[in-house]
């Protein structure tokens, strides 16, 4: 009986959502806001990647919120797993190939991650993606050397500093530009590395913070 009721409810939800989706004219030309971004984004922010410009400037406050959500995820995990002892005994040593391979790849993965977030305002990519790549570098080094630990203190300091500096840059914008997160630095020449005002700075902070958080999560879950 319970199953039938839930099935009927699911069907109702499906019909409703299908109906709504079929009615909505996605991609039609009424997107005045997005048009404004496309037409004025480069001029107003100096970042040639419009997506970045929207994510970090027009809707930068949301990004701060999303960063916070990830942060909460990391601490929440810490709360739930608090006090669990690491066994560490029955871990087998990985093969030589994994060992050597991870040592070799680790710096390159880090470099690639850093490249992604530093170029976030010029090309596709950005802080969240770059941070994920960096965390994957830590994952492979964990697989290569399961007994080695990165300092948890270090991770905490890095993520804490990343978040605090993000807010400080925002507050500086409030102080100098009159609005929280306003783009106070000179915009520079479009398509060069030093352009887009505060955008690259914010992306570097996000990249480092996300990298540290995801790496911390990986280590916690592995144990």
């Amino acid at each position, binding site marked *: 009986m319970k199953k039938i009721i839930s099935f009927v409810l699911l069907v109702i939800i499906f019909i409703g959502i299908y109906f709504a989706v079929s*009615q909505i004219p996605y991609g039609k030309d009424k997107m005045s806001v997005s048009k404004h971004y496309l037409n004025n984004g480069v001029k107003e922010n100096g970042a040639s990647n419009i997506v970045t410009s929207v994510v970090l400037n027009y809707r930068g406050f949301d990004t701060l919120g999303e960063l916070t959500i990830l942060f909460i995820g990391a*601490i929440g995990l810490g709360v739930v797993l608090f006090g669990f002892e690491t066994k560490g005994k029955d871990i087998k040593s990985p093969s030589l190939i994994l060992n050597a391979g991870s040592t070799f790849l680790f710096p390159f993965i880090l470099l690639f991650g850093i490249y992604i977030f530093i170029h976030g305002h010029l090309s596709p990519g950005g802080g969240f993606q770059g941070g994920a790549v960096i965390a994957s570098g830590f994952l492979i080094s964990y697989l290569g050397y399961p007994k080695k630990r990165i300092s948890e203190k270090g991770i905490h300091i890095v993520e804490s500093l990343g978040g605090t500096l993000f807010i400080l840059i925002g507050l500086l914008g409030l102080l100098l530009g009159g609005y929280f997160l306003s783009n106070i630095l000179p915009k520079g020449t479009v398509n060069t590395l030093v352009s887009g005002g505060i955008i690259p700075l914010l992306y570097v902070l996000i990249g480092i913070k996300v990298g540290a958080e995801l790496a911390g999560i990986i280590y916690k879950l592995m144990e």
Partner: protein
Amino acid sequence: MVSTVWQNPVLLIVVPLGLAFFTPIIGLIRKELVKYIPILGMLFNLTLSLFLLPKVLDNPIIVSLSGWKPPFAINLFVGPVGILFSILISLVGLLTAIYGINYIKKGAVEKYHMLFLLLLTGATGIVLTGDIFNLFVFFEILCISSYALVAYNQDKNGIEAATKYLIQGSLGSAFILLGIGFLYGLFGTLNMADIARNITTVDSPALFIAMALFITGFGVEAAIFPLNAWLPDAHSSAPSTISAILSGIAIHIGIYAIFRVLYTLFGFNSIFTVLAVIGIVTLLIGEMSAFRQENIKRVLAYSSMGQMGLIIFALSIGTVDGISGGLFQIITHTLSKSLLFLCVGYMVYSTNSMELSSLNGLGKRMPLISLLFTIGVFSLIGLPPFIGFPSKLSIILAGLKTGETLFLILIVLMLLATVIEGVYFFRIIQILYFKEPDKEERFKTPFTLLFPVIILGLLIVAIGIYPGLLQEILDRSAEIFWDKLSYIKIVFGG
């Protein structure tokens, strides 16, 4: 310029957020300092909100972020309702944080204080923002930190309750996101005032479905029947400080979100009748379930559910008087329920049991706490001279004023629910005062636990005796909350 920066409402969100981010570094310098950080953040918020209140009563403030005008950037809508909620959040947050200094000793203490502060930041963000997606982001901050905090004790009940809450809450969030997606598809904008301005240009069933998704999604957090299965478990197995915050603040934020969306975005007035009925059903079910409980925290949790129903009913009357009564009831419930949970937290802490029978004769063993508990209970039932009396009275008057038979019936049912509420609460009072205690020794209450509870008790009595202090603020808030046209006008200027 510099002189006005310090009164920018965005600081209400950013300062606690920054403090939460900075906490690990402070924790490295000195571990003991961490527990004072939430107090610092909430003290700042309380001061700034109180300072802003007289200003926003005249004219709501629009804060653009990133330096662009709405709808191109996110904006905050700092009206009297937002500031009223912000005062409540920071007041209860401050008192609970003081309570938490000595209450939270075990577990990941540093992380507790960070999550606590982030939960309150999320709540403040929701009530201040004027952008539907930003609202979702802060909603997630609120929800995810409460999932983690419910599991803080790491016992079996806590983990189970948190998992239940997590699953239902995430489903609700997914619904909200879907609703936002529909709205964005229809209007190409996420700014609430911009959507409200254009809502009449679109006549599509998709609009109705989006509204249904919003009500369901936020309804999980607001514990509307039948979306409230998580509430009794989560509220009763969390640490008492968190129960106080969840019951006193988090669920009201869900209600705020529902009615902000309904009042400002959508124009379906017929939905309010349905919601009024659902509200009374929630009220009756909550009170009847509370009646049967033997666990003191579950009694309070079910009673919260019932009170939510009452508030939803009041806000769905659809008149300014009704909204004013609903807001009043929110204040009543926030103060009374956090008072009750904090009192019970100490009782449970001392007697080590949540069963009603373990409270036998506590009135003699901890007289002050029991007295304050009684004040909270009387205020919830709606007895004069406590705050619950004027708030319940104003809801009844607002309902009678409509003159509709349906509301008349609903009010009779509401009074019936109040009787049930009175019966089970008086049973607890009887256990406290008229049963013989097992032991004679008295408990000594530390000052940090006593101080917040006394302040809450004093507020309940003070507002109960002089409801006029609040009435004017509430009426003005209700007017602005209800008035969609002025919302649009204020955001876009002129």
